[in-house]
């Protein structure tokens, strides 16, 4: 229960703090408390995955995003939108409805907390017995997201970006056309590279998962 209070309090601080970096760090606290809640709920594998992926990877990614967008470090008063009171009303209404429904629906539902199949071995067995197809679909989705992120963040490819530059800066169309044609070949090569490395990484990860499941 204390972990839940910590998670909610840190979440409130994430959405109300006036310093961007502090918001990210409070997010770490919130996710850590949630991982503790998973441990209490006997889902230990999910808890460690939460620590690894959220606290480890996602927060670092968000901090990189903050850094790369030259965000204001320190206090800044422009982080809140003008419609925060409407947002507050909507959020309070959502909380009221959800909490009322949950309390009325599950008022007398108790869960006996004993060690029940949340370990890495159990999770591996159920992932690779019952949920293999969703797992494979998810690896393809991850691959697609990776390629998409690479394509979006590279500067030297993409007709859309050339178009945007042309309309904004008034560069004449023939030059951007030539640029695009010149860089397209590059782009194709880079994409194939990315796909190759990602398949390798994916295979490695899957192998590690299988080993973990057998262990």
């Amino acid at each position, binding site marked *: 229960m204390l972990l839940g209070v910590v*998670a909610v309090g840190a979440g409130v601080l994430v959405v109300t703090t006036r310093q961007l970096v502090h918001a990210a760090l409070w997010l770490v606290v919130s996710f850590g408390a949630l991982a503790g809640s998973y441990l209490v709920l006997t889902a230990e594998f*999910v808890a460690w995955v939460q620590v690894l992926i959220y606290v480890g990877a996602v927060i670092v990614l968000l901090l990189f995003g903050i850094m790369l967008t030259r965000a204001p470090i320190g206090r800044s008063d422009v982080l809140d939108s003008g*419609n925060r009171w409407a947002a507050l009303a909507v959020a309070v209404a959502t909380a009221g409805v959800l909490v009322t429904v949950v309390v009325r629906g599950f008022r007398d539902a108790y869960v006996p907390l004993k060690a029940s199949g949340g370990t890495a071995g159990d999770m591996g067995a159920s992932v690779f017995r019952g949920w293999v197809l969703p797992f494979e679909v998810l690896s393809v989705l991850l691959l697609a997201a990776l390629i998409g992120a690479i394509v979006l963040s590279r500067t030297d490819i993409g007709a859309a970006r050339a178009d945007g530059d042309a309309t904004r800066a008034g560069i004449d169309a023939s030059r951007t056309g030539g640029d695009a044609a010149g860089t397209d070949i590059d782009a194709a090569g880079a994409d194939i590279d990315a796909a190759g490395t990602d398949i390798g990484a994916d295979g490695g990860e899957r192998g590690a998962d299988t080993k973990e499941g057998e262990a």
Partner: protein
Amino acid sequence: MHIVYPAIVAAVLFSVGVYGVLARRNAILVLMSVELMLNAVNLNLVAFDVWLRDRLHGGQVLTLFTIVIAAAEVGLGLAIILLVFRNRQTIDVDALRTLREEGTAAEPVAPQPQPPEAEAAEEVAQ
């Protein structure tokens, strides 16, 4: 343990995420709020999986899948935000009004109509 406790924590956390998505202006903070909402859903999934004692552990496996999807979403979202920043020099979601409907130009805080004012100020100064 009472199943209501994690369910209430998840509901409140989800509402906090809703407030963050609606009230924040920085796009990265909006992404953080989306993460909060996804985590609320994860907590619900784990709690009800433990309560129902699913033999296939559907709740926990779905939680893992949600975590993976959230990671992919954050990666793509940050790529899009960086692209917007590179094109517009801002990631203020209130200032991105290019796609707005014509005739609804109620611009409360957008920094667009500044140049005429600046010119007027210069004229006054001269």
